[in-house]
């Protein structure tokens, strides 16, 4: 090849900004002294504003924790900090352990995810990869509409229309799995009304589907065309391409969607209060009534007084801690996922 070398593509035409800069006579000392540029004051004002806004959020958060803690002191001092985790529930003896409610809250949320995640991933894949281009926007619109329905409307619809038919389904399911080791216990004898942990999970699952769908859709859509083509060019079918290119690319994004959905599910109040059946005894039977930290507040706060009222406020505090913990776990999960392969 000799000295000819490789001709590089011609560089783009000279950047004018650079040219003017090099022609300008350099100021004697560009770093110190001299008049402030005009944008300086605005910049400074903006910074002050941002700090103030941040402080405001912090103050609100701290005061919420403080007020909740103060109002819940009667409950906490009654049994000590142990009541935060205690499974004891004896209203006559003024024992209101938050433990079983917290567990049932997590059960409802987890079950809601089991329902919502496959549906959301399915819809998101359908919309981004399979549906004809013209059908995509309408589908997205309908699902986003679902997100706009108020929580209480969902709860009432479930209560009026679906709890009774569900009770029959539960009875059949229970009959089918009776005697099966673990499943038989999880799907134990159902409540006659159909109001149960499962019913609450279904309604919460439907409610978090739009947000989980929206995030997974966004994540799937950002899978680079180059990755999809790489997979297809190796002879992958569409499904193999989805598994081989889109899923690995989207792993941490889907985890984020799941965690956000979980956070929503944990805090969901009024719809759950309407359909869960209000039983504070911890149960492993998903077809039996239960109660969650949020739903018990909605159901009992009106009539509560004394230690019970204080306990209900304490449940709010526990709920707050729970969501903060979920947020922290989410962050560390995502950070770990990012470090693995540096995607998303």
């Amino acid at each position, binding site marked *: *090849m*000799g000295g*000819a*070398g*490789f*001709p590089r*593509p011609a560089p783009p035409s000279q950047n004018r900004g650079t040219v003017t800069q090099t022609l300008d006579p350099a100021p004697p000392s560009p770093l110190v002294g001299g008049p402030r540029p005009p944008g300086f004051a605005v910049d400074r004002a903006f910074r002050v504003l941002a700090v103030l806004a941040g402080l405001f959020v912090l103050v609100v958060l701290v005061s919420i924790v403080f007020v909740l803690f103060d109002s819940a002191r009667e409950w906490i001092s009654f049994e000590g900090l142990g009541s935060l985790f205690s499974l004891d529930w004896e209203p006559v003896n003024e024992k209101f352990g938050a433990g079983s409610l917290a567990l049932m809250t997590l059960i409802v949320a987890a079950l809601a995810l089991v329902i919502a995640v496959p549906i959301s991933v399915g819809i998101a894949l359908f919309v981004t990869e399979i549906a004809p*281009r013209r059908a995509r926007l309408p589908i997205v619109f309908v699902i986003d509409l679902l997100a706009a329905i108020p929580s209480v409307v969902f709860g009432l619809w479930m209560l009026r229309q679906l709890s009774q038919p569900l009770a029959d389904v539960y009875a059949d399911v229970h009959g089918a799995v009776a005697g099966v080791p673990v499943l038989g216990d999880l799907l134990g004898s159902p409540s006659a009304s159909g109001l149960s942990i499962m019913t609450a999970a279904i309604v919460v699952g439907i409610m978090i589907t739009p947000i989980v769908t929206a995030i997974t859709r966004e994540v799937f859509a950002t899978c*680079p065309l*180059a*990755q*999809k*083509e*790489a*997979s*297809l*060019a*190796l*002879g*992958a*079918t569409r499904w*193999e391409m989805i598994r*081989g*290119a889109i899923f*690995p*690319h989207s792993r941490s994004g889907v985890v984020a969607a799941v965690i956000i959905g979980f956070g929503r599910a944990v805090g969901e109040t009024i719809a759950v209060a309407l359909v869960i059946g209000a039983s504070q005894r911890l149960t492993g039977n998903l077809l039996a009534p239960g109660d969650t930290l949020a739903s018990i507040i909605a159901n009992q706060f009106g009539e509560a007084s004394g230690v019970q009222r204080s306990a209900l406020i304490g449940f709010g505090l526990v709920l707050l801690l729970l969501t903060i913990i979920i947020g922290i776990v989410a962050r560390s999960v995502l950070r770990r996922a990012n470090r*693995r*392969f*540096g*995607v998303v």
Partner: protein
Amino acid sequence: MTSEPAMPPAATAGDTITRVDLTPTQVRPPEVPADPGPVPGREVVFDLSTVEIFYGEARAVTDVDLDIARNEISAFIGPSGCGKTTVLRSLNRMHDLTPGARVAGTITYHGEDLYGPKVDAAEVRRRIGMVFQKPNPFPKSIFDNIAYGPRINGVRKRSELEGIVEQALTRAALWGEVKEKLKSSALSLSGGQAQRLCIARALAVDPDVLLMDEPCSALDPIATARIEDLMEELKETLTIVIVTHNMQQAARVSDRTAFYTAEADDNGRRVGKLVEYDATATIFTKPSDPRTEGYITGRFG
């Protein structure tokens, strides 16, 4: 199909004529090798006749007639936007994935209609591998990148996969550099390594043809030279079609060259077309079309 053993005659014939080292100052070497013309016994892999490709209503290329023979390297050259990539992607049915894209005319692959109703596009792409302009390794380990193709073809046994991975990486001249770190992310490789990884990934499914779309445009000269050497070796067992922006590269590596250009049609839209397709030495030394000559002189001069 035709008798199995590779067809060295075509390859050797190409070899003797393409080793002309063209430098910018030597556009037309005085001693011009005679145009060998079509070599009898060339085994045709692709035969394109009156191919036209559309994106929606817009016609991107028209009038493409050429055949590509086994164990040859064919280069597509021409100005940007003249349809080189478009034609290349029609050879492994990548256009199936672009909404609105349509291929008219006929393309046969080993005598079979590539766009026939019973042809399975996934199977076509398994036999006709593709390397893209920008290296596109998966965000997975080096091993899993190479094993991807074999896995979707049903290879499950670890030992078998290990053998395939080693062989593919060796063929792509990357084994020595990565054998110690097969488990690390493919995204940690340099640009040149990543492109060779993509070549290895394509080779792992044992394709019959390798389509390369400006595979060196993102690489430095050393990495480029390695890939060119590699193509030279791969040609013994494969048929290669390469799109390149680099005239020297086309002259160095290819046996045949197709020159495309884009010209305004009756409605004033620019449409790509094949101007000339011939032995590389002919295209670079005594092209029969003045447009080819103009382009090549311009690019070298």
